[in-house]
């Protein structure tokens, strides 16, 4: 079964979703991410969805799960690269991904995550979110 690669970039983990995901793959990704987060003690997760021409409630749920799980491990999640037609569809679908930060692309996403991590303080003793 294919595996989605997770890269470490600075203090973040970067995941690029390139293909159509089905259940097993989505679960595997969530497991992998949790493990890597603990291993590397990364403070941020950057999910690049610029290759997705569609996000349905299943993918939406996966993104929310990842963000929730990351939060428990004191990491920020930023989703980048959403396409306009996907954003418009999500809004119509009623899925607003509350609790997930977004940025236009990977560069801005990294900048945002770093800002958020710094605002919290290096040891994560910062304010509530």
């Amino acid at each position: 079964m294919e595996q989605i690669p997770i890269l470490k970039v600075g203090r973040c983990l970067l995941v690029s979703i390139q293909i159509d995901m089905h259940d097993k793959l989505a679960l595997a990704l969530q497991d992998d991410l949790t493990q890597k987060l603990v291993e590397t003690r990364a403070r941020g997760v950057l999910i690049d969805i610029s290759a997705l021409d569609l996000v349905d409630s299943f993918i939406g749920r996966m993104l929310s799960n990842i963000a929730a799980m990351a939060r428990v491990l004191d990491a920020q999640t930023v989703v980048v690269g959403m396409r306009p037609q996907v954003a418009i569809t999500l809004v119509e679908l009623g899925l607003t991904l509350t609790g997930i930060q977004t940025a236009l692309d990977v560069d801005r996403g990294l900048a945002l995550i770093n800002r958020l991590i710094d605002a919290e303080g290096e040891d994560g003793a910062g304010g509530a979110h």
Partner: protein
Amino acid sequence: MVASTTSRIPDLLEKHQSKLLASWLERQLASSSLRSGQIGEDELKEQSQKFLREFIAGLKSAPADDITEQSWRQVRELLSEFSHSRALQGFTPSETATFIFSLKEPLFTLLREEIKADAQALGEEIWTATRLIDKFGLFTAEIYQQSRDEIIKRQARELLELSTPVVELWHKILAIPLIGTLDSERTQTVMENLLNYIVKSGAEIAIIDITGVPTVDTLVAQHLIKTVSAARLMGADCIISGIRPQIAQTIVHLGLQLDVVSKATMADAFALALKRTGQVVTRAAARPA
């Protein structure tokens, strides 16, 4: 006229082609429904000549009662081109159909002259000819109608886009002045424009100015929230500006939760946007006297 063997029309037309063309042109130019100046006499002559040629060729090889047949294709294409351009130029449907229908009189005159002796044959030939020309006349009208429909749709689209402009106010800051009511179709256009612009310009803040929106009720508020949510998914925050006192009252009255920063004026929204994006506008140092 699959009995093109028995009909004399194709041969007669070919034999008297130039005479027919001349009297047909005369009829067209004389008809008061032809716009003066819109179409030159030479152009009209060329079009009529072409048509007659193809018409005669079609008569020789195709059935007279089915104009959708393959052998009538050249004639149909010619007529489609013709109707389409007339529609674009603003001719009326009658003016356009006159091209075909005005062919009847000269054609019948020709038939009467040549088939004098046999009344029954004359009757049949005229009947065949009139049915065929009527069919082509209707075809012309249909193509004309389709062309007009396309024009209207295109104009409606352009109007919709014109009324929802997106302005790049500053580095990383966009402004969208909304004018008129915000219905669901308009909202779709606004969202598409805004999001495409966000991608193009890398903007981080979008100021949506509603000074030009007459009323804000529950529906309009929903549309605004949708637009704000969509922009957020693309990493851009929104500020609503142009909140008039009555609007502010209505929002509170209806208990609408806008969940986005709102300012009374575009200037205030702009100042906030600059701050948020870490930009500063400074006054140039005064010149020494």
